[in-house]
C-alpha cells in the first residue's frame, strides 16, 4: 500500500480524462441527434468527471498532510516543518498542483451547468456540455502527462525543500489563488455556450441569458482575486506598492477587462438585440485570454523566451490557446453570418451607444496592456534583444483610458435606451454634476493641487451622486423600505450600480494614494529617532527569532504622538532554510484615513535602513474593490419573478424639455 496515494491521484485524473472525453462525445452526439442520447448518460459522465477531479485533489492533500514523499509533487513542494495551513495550500502553490485545482473548479462549474440541462432536445445545452468536456479533457490530459504531480518516486527523500518562501508567510495564499481560478475557469461556460450556439446557428439571447450567472460568478471572483492579489503584494512584498504592472498581474487583468466588456455588451444584446456577433467575439476572447494568461504565468516565458520549454505545460497551454483561437474564430467566420443581426440601427447618444463606447475603451485597454506585456517577449524571440516595458508606459496608457471609462460610467447608466436628448440628460445629471464640482472645489481649496486627484474626485462624486439621485427618483417611496424594495427588486441594475460605486471608490483611492503619498528612507541606530507623518519614530531594538523552517529578524520601531506610544512597527526579514533569498515583510498601520507602511531596506548588525511610506485613503482601495465584487454577486442573486401587483417598475421621468 506504499504507493496508494499517488496511484489514487493518478487514477482520479485518468477517470476525469475518460469521463470528459465521454462527455464531449455524448454532448456533441446529443446536439446532432437529440434522441440518441439520454440525459442520464450526460449526467453520469459529468458526475464521474467530478469524482475523478475530487479524488485527485483528495489524494494530493492527503499525501501532503501525511508527508508521503513517494509522490513527486510532495517531494518537490513540501517539507515536514511546513505548518498545517501552508501544507494545505501547497496543493496549489506549484505548477502541477495548480492544474489539479483548475480541474476541480472546472468540474464544479460543469456540474452546475449540467444541472440546468434537463432534456436532450436542449441542443444548445448539450452542445455546450460537449465543448466543456473538450476543455476538461485538455486539463485532465495535462495532469496525466506533462503536469503530473502523482509520479512515484521509488527512492523517496526523507524531507523536501518546502514551498516557495513567498507562498508560506501569509494567509493570502489560501485565498488569492482559489479566487482567481474561480474567476478564470468560470468563463469556460460562456465560451462553451457561444461555440455551441455557433455550431447550431442559434442566434438570439438564449446563450447569453443562460450563461449570465456563470459569467457574473466568474467576474465577481476574478475581481475579488485581483483585489486580494494587490493587497497581498502590498502587505507582503515590501516594495511599497500594490501594482507593479508585472506580467503576472497583467495576465489576470487582461481577461478581467475583456470580461467586463462582455458582461456589458451582453446587456445590450439582451435588451436591444444588438452586438450579437460582437458578443461571440468577446466570449471567445475572454476564454482565450484566460488560457493565454495562464500560459504567461505558468511557463517561464516572461523571465526568458528560451526557458518556456522547461516544463511541458508551457508549450501545451500555448498550443491549446492557438487551437482555441484558430478553431473559435474559424467557426465564427463560417457561422457568424447566420447569427449576426445586421438590420438594427444604432444611435450613439443612447445607452447602447455608451455601452459600445465602454466596450471599445475596455478592449483598447486590454489590447494596450496585452501589447505591453508580450512585446518584450516578441522582441526577444525575433531579434534576441531585451527591452523593458514598465510602469511609465502602462501608466501613460491606462490613465486617459480610465478617465474616459469613468466619464462613460457617469452617464451610461442614466441614459435612456434608443435616444437621449440633451435636455433629459441635463435633468438627470445636473444635481450630480453640482455635487461633483462642489467636491472638486473643496479638494482644491483644501490644498490638493494634483490635476489627476481633482478630476477623479469630480468624476467619482458625480457617479455616486447620479446613482443616489436615480435611486431616490425611481424608488416607489423614499422611506428605507421603498429604497430597499427597489434595490432588491432590480438586482441586475442595482448590482451594477454598486459595482460602479466600487470603481469610483477605487479610482479615488488610487489617485489620492498615488499623488499625495509621502516617503522617506532613514538609517537609524538603536535609540535613534526621526520624524515621519506627524509621529516621532524611535528605533528600539532588532530581534532574531528562530522557527522550525525560518529565521525571522525584526526591528521594533515606536511611533510616538505627543509623548504617547501610538503604534509599534515590526518590519521583518525572513530567511527560510533551503532558500537563499530573504523575504522582507513590511509593517502596515491602516486607518480609514491613511496607511503608514514601514519596510526594512537593510538590517546591519548595529544600524537599520527603513523605508517609511504614508498613503492617504489606501484602505479605500480594498473596500472599493470588494464593493465591485459584491455588486457582481448582488446582480446574480435574483429572485423568481413574482406575478402579483406591487412589482411595478419605476416610471421613467419625462424629459424636461416638455
Amino acid at each position, binding site marked *: 500500500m506504499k504507493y496508494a496515494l499517488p496511484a489514487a491521484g493518478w487514477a482520479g485524473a485518468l477517470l476525469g480524462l475518460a469521463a470528459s472525453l465521454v462527455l464531449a462525445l455524448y454532448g456533441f452526439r446529443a446536439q446532432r441527434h437529440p434522441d440518441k442520447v439520454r440525459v442520464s448518460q450526460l449526467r453520469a459522465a459529468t458526475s464521474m468527471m467530478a469524482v475523478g477531479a475530487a479524488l485527485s485533489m483528495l489524494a494530493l492533500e492527503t499525501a501532503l498532510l501525511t508527508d508521503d514523499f513517494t509522490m513527486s509533487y510532495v517531494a518537490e513542494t513540501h517539507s515536514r516543518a511546513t505548518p498545517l495551513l501552508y501544507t494545505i495550500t501547497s496543493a496549489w502553490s506549484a505548477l502541477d498542483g495548480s492544474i489539479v485545482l483548475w480541474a476541480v473548479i472546472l468540474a464544479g462549474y460543469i456540474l452546475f451547468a449540467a444541472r440546468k440541462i434537463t432534456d436532450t432536445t436542449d441542443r444548445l445545452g448539450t452542445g455546450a456540455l460537449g465543448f466543456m468536456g473538450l476543455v476538461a479533457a485538455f486539463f485532465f490530459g495535462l495532469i496525466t502527462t506533462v503536469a503530473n504531480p502523482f509520479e512515484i518516486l521509488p527512492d523517496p527523500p526523507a524531507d523536501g525543500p518546502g514551498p516557495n518562501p513567498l507562498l508560506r508567510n501569509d494567509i493570502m495564499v489560501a485565498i488569492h489563488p482559489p479566487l482567481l481560478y474561480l474567476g478564470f475557469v468560470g468563463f469556460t461556460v460562456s465560451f462553451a455556450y457561444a461555440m455551441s450556439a455557433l455550431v447550431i446557428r442559434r442566434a438570439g439571447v438564449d446563450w447569453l441569458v443562460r450563461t449570465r450567472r456563470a459569467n457574473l460568478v466568474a467576474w465577481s471572483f476574478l475581481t475579488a482575486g485581483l483585489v486580494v492579489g494587490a493587497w497581498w503584494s502590498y502587505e507582503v512584498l515590501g516594495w511599497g506598492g500594490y501594482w507593479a504592472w508585472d506580467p503576472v498581474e497583467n495576465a489576470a487583468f487582461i481577461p478581467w477587462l475583456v470580461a467586463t466588456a462582455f458582461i456589458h455588451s451582453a446587456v445590450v444584446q439582451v435588451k436591444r438585440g444588438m452586438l450579437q456577433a460582437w458578443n461571440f467575439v468577446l466570449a471567445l476572447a475572454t476564454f482565450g485570454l484566460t488560457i493565454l494568461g495562464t500560459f504567461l504565468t505558468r511557463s517561464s516565458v516572461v523571465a526568458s523566451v528560451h526557458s518556456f520549454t522547461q516544463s511541458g505545460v508551457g508549450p501545451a497551454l500555448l498550443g491549446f490557446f492557438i487551437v482555441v483561437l484558430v478553431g473559435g474564430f474559424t467557426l465564427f467566420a463560417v457561422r457568424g453570418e447566420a447569427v449576426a443581426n445586421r438590420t438594427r440601427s444604432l444611435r450613439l447618444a443612447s445607452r447602447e451607444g455608451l455601452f459600445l463606447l465602454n466596450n471599445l475603451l475596455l478592449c483598447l485597454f486590454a489590447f494596450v496592456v496585452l501589447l505591453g506585456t508580450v*512585446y518584450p517577449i516578441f522582441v526577444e524571440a525575433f531579434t534576441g534583444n531585451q527591452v523593458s516595458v514598465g510602469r511609465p508606459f502602462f501608466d501613460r496608457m491606462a490613465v486617459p483610458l480610465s478617465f474616459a471609462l469613468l466619464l462613460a460610467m457617469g452617464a451610461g447608466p442614466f441614459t435612456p435606451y434608443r435616444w437621449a436628448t440633451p435636455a433629459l440628460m441635463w435633468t438627470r445629471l445636473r444635481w450630480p454634476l453640482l455635487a461633483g464640482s462642489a467636491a472638486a472645489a473643496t479638494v482644491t481649496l483644501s490644498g490638493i493641487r494634483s490635476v489627476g486627484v481633482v478630476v477623479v474626485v469630480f468624476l467619482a462624486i458625480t457617479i455616486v451622486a447620479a446613482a443616489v439621485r436615480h435611486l431616490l427618483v425611481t424608488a416607489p417611496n423614499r422611506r428605507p423600505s421603498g429604497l430597499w424594495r427597489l434595490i432588491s427588486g432590480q438586482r441586475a441594475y442595482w448590482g451594477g450600480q454598486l459595482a460602479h460605486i466600487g470603481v469610483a471608490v477605487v479610482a479615488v483611492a488610487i489617485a489620492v494614494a498615488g499623488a499625495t503619498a509621502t516617503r522617506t528612507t532613514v538609517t537609524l541606530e538603536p535609540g535613534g529617532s526621526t520624524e515621519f507623518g506627524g509621529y516621532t519614530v524611535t528605533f528600539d531594538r532588532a530581534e532574531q527569532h528562530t522557527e522550525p523552517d525560518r529565521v525571522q529578524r525584526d526591528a521594533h520601531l515606536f511611533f510616538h504622538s505627543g509623548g504617547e506610544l501610538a503604534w509599534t512597527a515590526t518590519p521583518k526579514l525572513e530567511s527560510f532554510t533551503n532558500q537563499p533569498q530573504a523575504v522582507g515583510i513590511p509593517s502596515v498601520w491602516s486607518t480609514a484615513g491613511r496607511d503608514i507602511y514601514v519596510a526594512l531596506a537593510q538590517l546591519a548588525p548595529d544600524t537599520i535602513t527603513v523605508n517609511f511610506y504614508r498613503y492617504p485613503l489606501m484602505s479605500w482601495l480594498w473596500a472599493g474593490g470588494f464593493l465591485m465584487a459584491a455588486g457582481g454577486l448582488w446582480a446574480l442573486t435574483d429572485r423568481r419573478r413574482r406575478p402579483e401587483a406591487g412589482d411595478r417598475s419605476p416610471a421613467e421621468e419625462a424629459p424636461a424639455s416638455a
Partner: protein
Amino acid sequence: MRRKLISIAFLAGVLSLLGVVVAQLLTAPDTAGDRAYQLEQRLRCPVCKSVSIAESPSETATAMRQAVQEQVTAGRSDEEVVDYFRARYGDWVLLDPPARGRTLLLWLLPALGVLGGLVGVAVLALRRRHQPAPFLSEEQRQQVSHAVADARGKYRREDLL
C-alpha cells in the same frame, strides 16, 4: 419659466464651482519635485522582477540610486543620467520604452487601435442614416408583441434587465 430658471441656476453653480477649481489649479505653485526620485522610477532594477530601482531594496538598486543621486547633485541633465545607465545596461534598463527603434511599434499599435475604434464607430453611426425605419404590418406587430410576451414569460425578469 421657473424650470428654465432652475436650470440656469444649476448651470451657473456648476460652472462657477468648476471655475474655482480651474483657477486654483492654474495658480498652483510649480513644484519641481524630487528629480532623483523621478529618474529612479524610470530605471529598471537589474536583479528584480519588473520594478524600478526606486522601489527595490536590493543592493544593486541601492548602488544605482546612489549613482543617480550623485549625478543629479553634479548638475547633469535627465538625458545624461539616463544615457549613462543605457550605456552600461542597454535599452533594457529603460522602463519607459522610447518611441523609436525596436519599441516604436509599441507606440504605433495603440494609436492604430484608437483609429480603428473611431472608424468602427463612424461606420456604425453612418450606416444608420441610410436605413429607413422598417415598416411593420399589423400582423407583424402582433407577432412581435407575442414574441415579447413569450420571452417575458420564459425568462426571469432579472435576466432581461
